[in-house]
């Protein structure tokens, strides 16, 4: 059994876009072109685990989204996470 509270909490920024909501205004791509990418005119892809260097931009991207489709959360470091799985 894994108890989340006892695990080391090494947090890492994670981002999630509700692509059902997204209307591809690409404001996030302008704000953080390394995390959000347009493939073609209307296909938005993003890196859910952005690099530390992009974190500030990702926050701006979430702010700029005209339909509030971007949420910012966190996760544990992958190593910890896998280690905690029996």
């Amino acid at each position, binding site marked *: 059994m894994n108890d*989340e509270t006892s695990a080391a909490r090494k947090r890492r920024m*994670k981002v999630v876009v509700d692509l059902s909501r997204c*209307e591809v205004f690409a404001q996030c791509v302008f704000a953080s072109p390394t995390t959000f990418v347009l493939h*073609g005119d*209307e*296909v938005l*892809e993003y890196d859910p685990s952005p690099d530390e260097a992009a974190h500030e931009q990702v926050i701006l991207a979430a702010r700029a989204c005209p339909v509030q489709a971007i949420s910012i959360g966190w996760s544990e470091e992958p190593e910890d996470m896998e280690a905690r799985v029996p």
Partner: protein
Amino acid sequence: MTEHLDSRTDRFTRGRVVIVGASLAGLRTAEALRQEGFTGALTLIGDEPHLPYDRPPLSKQVLAGRLPVEHTPLARLHDLEASWRCGVPAVGLSLADGHVLLADGQHVPFDRLIIATGARARPWLHPAEAALDGVLLLRTRDDASRLRARLAAGSPRVLIIGGGFIGAEVASVCRALDLRVTVVERGPAPLAGALGTVVGSIAAAVQRDHGVDLRCDTTVTTLEGDADGRLRRVHLSDGDTLDVDVALVAIGPLRNTEWLAGSGLAADPRGVVCDAFCRAIDERGEIQERVFVAGDVARWPHPLYPDELLSVEHWSNAVAQARTVAQNLVHGPAAYRAHTHLPSFWSHQFGINIKSAGVPALADQVLITQGSVDDRRFVAAYGLGGRLIAAVTFNQARMLPVYQALIEASAPLPIDFKASDRPSDTRPLPAGFPAAPQPSPTMAAPTRSRAEHAATSAMAMEHAASRTSLTSDAG
């Protein structure tokens, strides 16, 4: 049971909540429970050896090699303080004793249970052929890694069995990687099970434009292996034989409900029946007040589609249903809200953003209302009995909200917007859903079971309607 109710508010805030299925719906329900003020013990049980991750990228960026699979774990949006049981499946449920039985023999007791066990990929029907090296499925992170490794290694020809969304997305990735790919679709067009043959045939043209060897009205008769058990050849019903070393079986989902066998709940490979408030219904048609259902595994009644129980495989439904379940679980009957989220999904394939709102598969008519099919930028409106029930956009995401509002208002069809970009021909056509559907988003049972009857009974729906605010989750 009542000992855990907050005596002042009648809210369920303490007690023990167990969630079975630790993926999108399970995680978001857990978070929403905390947000709603649940402070009791929270346990998530998942059979996968990973913490929750996001599936949509698996058939897109991950497969194309643009996103490492390690980047797919889902964001935590709220503190959980939960116990996780990862890598161990639930194998039984006792409603009478209020516990879940795990494969390792443990009993996990609950005061409230949430069923969020989702679906899995339907395996190839012939076990021996399915076991061949190179015959793959795509549902999990590990599936994606396996398929990715095959594609990255290069393949003389990839075979995709099934022209649904996952098949089409994988075909798109194969072409982007410049791999030869054959899609074998039993029906008349790809995506036809979900979008009908009118739009499906547009999808077929898109695939062929991109160099996919698309074979409709065709089935795989045999998958043939070599002496070492490696896939090497496929025989098709059109008489053709192709040399392939990778075959993706993408013939639809099966809901993960086996663990509920014998529990008394109305559960089968189509899902678990629940009422409009997402409470599970048992085989006798009785509502189980302590058991809720969310995500791909749920079959629930929707006021806009009164004759059906909906079951979808849509990311946004898992998220929205998680919120409904948490709200109803915590705040109790006096504050119940019906799950009236309008089904919607997206798919990325061949550089096109396909979006859908409503349930196209229930339609009898379809018409192109805006844009140009030739430019692959258009809106298709779907109707049933003269009412708008769904809309699909190809690279026209910004047009969808208008249609969403009209669907929620059951606007009459045909609609004539006099839109500046309406095509010259806006006559409705038969939507063209195959008579014997591929596993489609909804399947009405030929005869209603007691549970299905209970879920959609006039009384239940009326009750739900009184708690319906169609725009409640718009914001």
